[in-house]
């Protein structure tokens, strides 16, 4: 926490602004429209000043004191901004031109676009360029901290890794918590599709530079049109389409380096440190470290040879390169956008890399005056190599790097990696990277063909038909050379394919009646079929020179196939109405039928109602000139969560092998009432904009999950242990706040800041009669989604350095009873990995062609259970064959020592380093400098010389520093606050150039 405080002190200093002083004259005047109507509430401002301004009154009049040679900037929502020099005058009258475009700003919502003003639900949107600025491999990585209430967390920093996204907390224990991704109107596959590699993100093939905008639908009203898939929110991605005009091209190139770094000082011990620690541990165990026949022989001579810093031997500077070209253009009838990109990322660990080739074409063509065809096609090929991580494997470099003892030689005399390391199970991650294979090659295709017909004015019939395919090939090969023992060469191969076919057909009618009554109505139908197939072979004893199944003994080759299918059929309608752009109402109704659910509950009905009131347009607000926008929104609705595996409603028999025959055994009882989890959500929100400078919104919500799917414990006399039933409930309550301001807005200098914060609290209401689920990480009625249930570690006994535990805490007196026996320690609810608040802030400065922008992400109130590595690397002597982390050196040395680790004892059997202990619980608060970018765009004269339209060079620092106190690589370990052997988030510098011509 102290680092975070010092960080805020620095930021506060940076934010202190400057004031201007000069010789003034009093100026007055009237601001009117071209037709002579007075414009009230217009801002009249001295150019270059944030403090000198006035607002026009009901008659359009204003008074202001400004320097005689100053310039006035007059602005008002809905009008074009005018600048006019005072030139010594005392009366300055101005005519404002209306700015239709500004008022018409639209955003993409479910099945259409609406004017921003007309939105009734809770939505957040972000422009493509904001996302593309960050040098990330997939768009989900760029979303973190950008939008209030959207949490992005990955358990891996590996190139191409998948993320977990939570919008407004958790809604489910057994069904999905991931939002629905919709690209250009079609729901797409997302999530982790790795088979034999550590992680593989489906979304990597969506090029961030292809994205025009992203809208996140957060409440029931906004998302209800997606019915049974909307419970966790919806992320709508719109890709760029062509623009009328001459073809323009953008070429981009970037190159970057990355490295592994802990900002909290986490590192393994050096040889000297470890030897000292081990010798002390041996002595503490009553052993003589200098006795060659003793159990813990650790002579000082171990320091004589060469030492290896294993972590640096197993890591390297990573690098990233990306090249892209895109073109867009069109005429009155045809528009196109296309792009092609190549991306290569070498990880910081040997053996880890990621490559991607991707291309997109988005074309729109008017076949007739009333018929328009469109195509959105994205194709990609990715190649991923890695080595076993995400768990504490001996071959995992991030684990082996901190556990192999420094005096163990890293290489053989011939320079090849030494695998003769008994303490690491004869493995060396460099050998693994060199000899083993672990890869996944994926071909992806995603195409949507659309047809839009306007049979008569105001009615649009639209069909979108999409096919998405992912074809993967994955292999894991274990080579005996990487093991150092007589292990057999073993090949595992997987071929898989995902196919998702979607048809989405809508009819939209929009019109304005009587000048005031705006109506939009949508009716639609959708059908979806999803298919996943895989085939796996396991071939031990294959020929090391030809590691394929056909070169393994036939009787030892095992093969397995898997199939998964699901379908969905939907009908929906959306009705929008507004009166005079003042009162807005929307209702949505959707019926989804799904193959996932029981025969009696195949169909579900989802709905929402919402309304908003644009106060700014009310007569009584006309005089409040400084107010540009004030809008109140209220919504309520019921959405569904269909994120469960297929076939769970079926009564099933599975094959069972016995006595040389295959019989059948019941594996699952039928459940013909299995149904959707339902989310009922209230949302109240306020949108505002003042002084044409400051825009923001506040949302308060309450989201309740009903019919939550749980495995209900049943008596085993039924033949089953649990039944999957719709029996639980939970809720999320929260507040979100987003604020964006233009602090300085002059032609020469622009300073923008943005800030968002979200508070969310999840509470489990009912677990179907159970009090709790889980052991060390529990779901408990009345508590949050995840609560750690851990042994209560007290600290060291200052007199002898033993670990002390709290065996009892008297709730009334607060009196604690201590014990030195771990077995007698009490267990208690020690904390939660869920943040109490999170968000981001950004600032950008622009001066001429130079711009500097920074984006920060933060989170707080959460715990990290830093357990897995610690259990081994801060072992109090239990692990005498593993290196330890440096902070383990802070151990009890003499009577009176406190605030340190227990006295290490070689072969420690006191369980003082037991995993399920709050000793490993740390505060997870952090502020991350996620991205700092310095860019320079060449001025027009220079561009003319070069015959290009634009040229920008930039350098970015990504995740340069994270202010945190978590004694590990990075505080963001996973959504549950712990993880083992994860590829940490890395730091990187990236430089790039973008040319448009």
């Amino acid at each position: 926490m102290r680092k975070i405080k010092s960080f805020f002190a620095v930021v506060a200093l940076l934010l202190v602004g400057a004031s201007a002083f000069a010789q003034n004259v009093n100026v007055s005047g009237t601001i009117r429209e071209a037709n002579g109507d007075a414009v009230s509430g217009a801002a009249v401002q001295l150019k270059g000043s944030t403090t000198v301004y006035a607002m026009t009154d009901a008659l359009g009049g204003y008074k202001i004191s400004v320097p005689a040679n100053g310039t006035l900037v007059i602005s008002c929502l809905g009008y074009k901004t005018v600048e006019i020099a005072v030139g010594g005058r005392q009366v300055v009258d101005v005519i404002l031109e209306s700015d239709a475009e500004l008022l018409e700003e639209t955003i993409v919502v479910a099945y259409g676009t609406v004017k921003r003003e007309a939105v009734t639900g809770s939505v957040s949107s972000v422009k493509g360029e904001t996302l593309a600025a960050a040098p990330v491999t997939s768009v989900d990585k760029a979303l973190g901290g950008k939008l209030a209430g959207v949490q992005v967390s990955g358990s891996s920093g590996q190139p191409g890794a998948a993320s977990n996204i939570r919008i407004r907390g958790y809604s489910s224990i057994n069904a999905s918590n991931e939002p629905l991704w919709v690209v250009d109107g079609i729901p797409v596959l997302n999530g982790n599709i790795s088979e034999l590699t550590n992680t593989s993100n489906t979304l990597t093939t969506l090029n961030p530079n292809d994205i025009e905008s992203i809208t996140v639908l957060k409440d029931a009203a906004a998302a209800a049109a997606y019915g049974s898939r909307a419970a966790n929110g919806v992320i709508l991605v719109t890709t760029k389409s062509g623009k009328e005009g001459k073809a323009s091209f953008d070429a981009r190139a970037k190159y970057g380096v990355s490295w592994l770094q802990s900002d909290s000082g986490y590192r393994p011990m050096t040889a000297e440190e470890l030897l000292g620690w081990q010798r002390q541990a041996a002595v503490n165990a009553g052993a003589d470290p200098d006795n060659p026949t003793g159990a813990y022989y650790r002579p000082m001579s171990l320091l004589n040879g060469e030492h290896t810093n294993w972590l640096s031997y197993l890591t390297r500077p990573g690098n990233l390169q990306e090249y892209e070209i895109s073109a867009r253009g069109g005429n009155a009838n045809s528009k196109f956008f296309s792009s092609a990109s190549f991306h290569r990322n070498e990880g910081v660990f040997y053996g880890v890399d990621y490559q991607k080739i991707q291309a997109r074409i988005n074309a729109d063509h008017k076949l007739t005056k009333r018929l328009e065809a469109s195509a959105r096609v994205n194709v990609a090929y990715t190649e991923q190599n890695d080595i076993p991580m995400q768990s504490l494997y001996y071959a995992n470099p991030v684990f082996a790097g901190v556990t192999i003892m420094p005096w163990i030689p890293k290489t053989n005399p011939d320079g090849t990696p030494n695998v003769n390391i008994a303490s690491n199970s004869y493995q060396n991650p460099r050998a693994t990277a060199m000899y083993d294979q672990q890869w996944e090659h994926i071909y992806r295709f995603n195409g949507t063909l659309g047809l839009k017909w306007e049979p008569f004015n105001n009615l649009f019939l639209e069909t979108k038909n999409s096919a998405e395919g992912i074809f993967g090939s994955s292999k894991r090969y274990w080579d005996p050379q990487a093991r150092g023992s007589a292990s057999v060469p073993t090949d595992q191969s997987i071929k898989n394919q995902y196919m998702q076919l979607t048809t989405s057909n809508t009819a939209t009618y929009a019109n304005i009646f009587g000048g005031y009554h705006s109506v939009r109505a949508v009716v639609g139908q959708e059908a979806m079929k999803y298919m996943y197939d895989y085939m796996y072979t396991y071939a031990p004893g294959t020929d090391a020179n030809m590691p394929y199944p056909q070169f393994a003994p036939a009787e030892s080759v095992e093969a397995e196939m898997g199939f998964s299918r699901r379908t969905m059929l939907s009908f929906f309608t959306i009705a929008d109405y507004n009166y005079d752009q003042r009162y807005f109402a929307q209702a949505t109704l959707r019926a989804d039928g799904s193959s996932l659910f029981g025969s009696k509950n195949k169909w579900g009905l989802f709905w929402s109602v919402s309304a908003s009131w644009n106060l700014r347009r009310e007569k009584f607000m006309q005089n409040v000139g400084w107010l540009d926008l004030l809008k109140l929104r209220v919504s309520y609705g019921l959405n569904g969560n269909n994120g469960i595996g297929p076939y769970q409603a079926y009564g099933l028999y599975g094959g069972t092998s016995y006595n040389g025959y295959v019989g059948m055994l019941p594996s699952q009882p039928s459940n013909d009432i299995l149904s959707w989890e339902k989310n009922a959500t209230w949302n109240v929100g306020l949108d505002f904009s003042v002084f044409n400078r400051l825009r923001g919104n506040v949302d308060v919500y309450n989201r309740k999950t009903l019919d939550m799917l749980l495995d209900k414990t049943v008596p085993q006399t039924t033949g089953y242990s649990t039944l999957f039933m719709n029996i639980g409930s939970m809720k999320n309550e929260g507040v979100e706040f987003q604020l964006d301001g233009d602090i300085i807005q002059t032609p020469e200098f622009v300073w923008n800041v943005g800030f968002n914060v979200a508070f969310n609290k999840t509470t489990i209401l009912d677990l179907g009669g159970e009090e709790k689920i889980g052991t060390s990480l529990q779901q408990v009625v009345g508590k949050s989604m995840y609560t750690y249930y851990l042994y209560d570690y007290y600290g060291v006994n200052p007199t002898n350095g033993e670990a002390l535990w709290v065996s009892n805490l008297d709730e009334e007196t607060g009196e604690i009873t201590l014990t030195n026996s771990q077995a007698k320690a009490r267990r208690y609810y020690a904390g939660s990995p869920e943040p109490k608040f999170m968000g981001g802030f950004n600032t950008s400065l622009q001066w001429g062609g130079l711009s500097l922008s920074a984006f920060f992400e933060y989170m707080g109130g959460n715990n990290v259970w830093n357990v897995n590595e610690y259990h081994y690397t801060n072992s109090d002597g239990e692990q005498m064959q593993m290196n330890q982390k440096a902070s383990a050196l802070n151990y009890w040395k003499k009577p009176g020592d406190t605030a340190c680790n227990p006295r290490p004892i070689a072969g420690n059997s006191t369980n003082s380093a037991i995993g399920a202990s709050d000793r490993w619980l740390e505060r997870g608060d952090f502020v991350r400098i996620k991205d700092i970018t310095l860019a320079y765009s060449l001025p027009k004269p220079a561009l003319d010389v070069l015959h290009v339209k634009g040229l920008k060079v930039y350098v970015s620092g990504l995740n340069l520093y994270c202010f945190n106190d978590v004694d590990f690589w990075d505080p963001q370990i996973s959504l549950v606050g712990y993880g083992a052997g994860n590829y940490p988030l890395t730091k990187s510098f990236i430089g790039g150039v973008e040319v448009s011509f």
Partner: protein
Amino acid sequence: MKKYIVIIAAALVALVSCKDFLEEAPLTAQSDVLTLSTIEGFDSATGGAYSPLASADNWYGMIFVVGHELMTGNARKSLTADSGRLYTNYRINYSPTDTWGGLWSYAYYVISCCNEVINRLEGESAELGTEEERNNLIAEALFLRALSHFDLVRTFAQPYAYTSDASHLGVPIVLERDLSAKPARNTVKQVYEQVIADLTKAEGLIDPAYRRSGTDPAAAVSIYAIQGLLSRVYLYSKQWQLAADYATKVISSGKYSMWTADDIFSGSFEDGDANSVYWAESQSSGEVIFEIYADKSNSYDGYWTGIRQMTSPDGYGDAAASQDLIGIYEEGDVRGKLFFVGTGDYAGDVWPAKYYGKGKSNPDVNNVPIIRLSEMYLNRAEAVINGATGANAAADLEIIAKNRGASTQPTTNAGVQLERRKELAWEGHYWFDLARTGTAMTRTDVAEGVIKEIPYPNYRWAMPIPDRETIANENLEPNVWE
């Protein structure tokens, strides 16, 4: 492109109009409707119901035999190999959270599998196949259901004679599939009556020539397995005459023959030419009437905790033979040779060799006999000693002794029990024989602090009901352990 769009749209519309578009059945598992729609499906469902019996950690694949031996003076935790498993069994310190929960769940699982077969073939599916086919399947299912109920009642309830009319708490009898049922415990008498009813009905239904085909014929239910189990159930409930009569049915069928001393053990471990009929891949002649077939291809194979692994230093080797047991074999008794002193690091223990593996080609697994001919002779001798007629107890005891190279035991209860212990040691009988005869368990060769005696009566003769069950089913009364 327009044409393309139209084609795709038409294809998708066609797909949508398909009336069962929302039906997606699994492809690698079968819906119960399909499985239970043909006689072949019922045959598979019946064959599948055997499978869980082979589970190592839950039933006959290891724990039901080894765990019960460790609760008596027949076995001890090995001194030289110890993976930390089976301590609860050895110390007999069960609790509601650490009890025979695996047996409870597996036995009721098999019961529910059998109920589906029995009730449907007698009910809505009574038209499938021929009557003979149906009867054979029903008989198999009845046998497995009876064996399951029997193993449950002898584990979780006090022995039959605990009360004079066996009115004390047994286990719930489950005869129908009901996912919301919360059955209370039936009395021991009721459970025995149900087991006997199932078995006698099965005996009447099964074709005496019927045997499910499989690698090991003795792993399939036959009329003799049914009769053999009936003999044992009658013996446990002290219905002496019936126990003797059913033993006689099996013995006089002539289908089984006594193993000779050479069958039991020949050669020597030192010379590496040791051999025993216990290590056979299958049993088509000789003593075994019903057994559990073991192979790594079994879905419920125990891998590293199978019976071979837990009783051999080549595996985990947690369970070794007790000196208490070794001491009861006379010089020259071939059964004593089935216990050998380990070599090298494992020389400090005497290891049982009944589960020595199936030879070089399949060393990790071993079949587990459940009912065999010697037990029939012993059952009959005991029944006759206690008043049954129609057989000669002395002759029955002699045929065993003669084939083992041992002296014949006197025709007393003590004599027959001693012969039973020698003959059926490490086959999971001794604990139950002590319980049903109301004999205290005493042992001397145990580790420090491990319980040496359980008097009779004592709460420890009925295992705690798993607490997940008493929590999930408020009608289920627990067994109180002090």
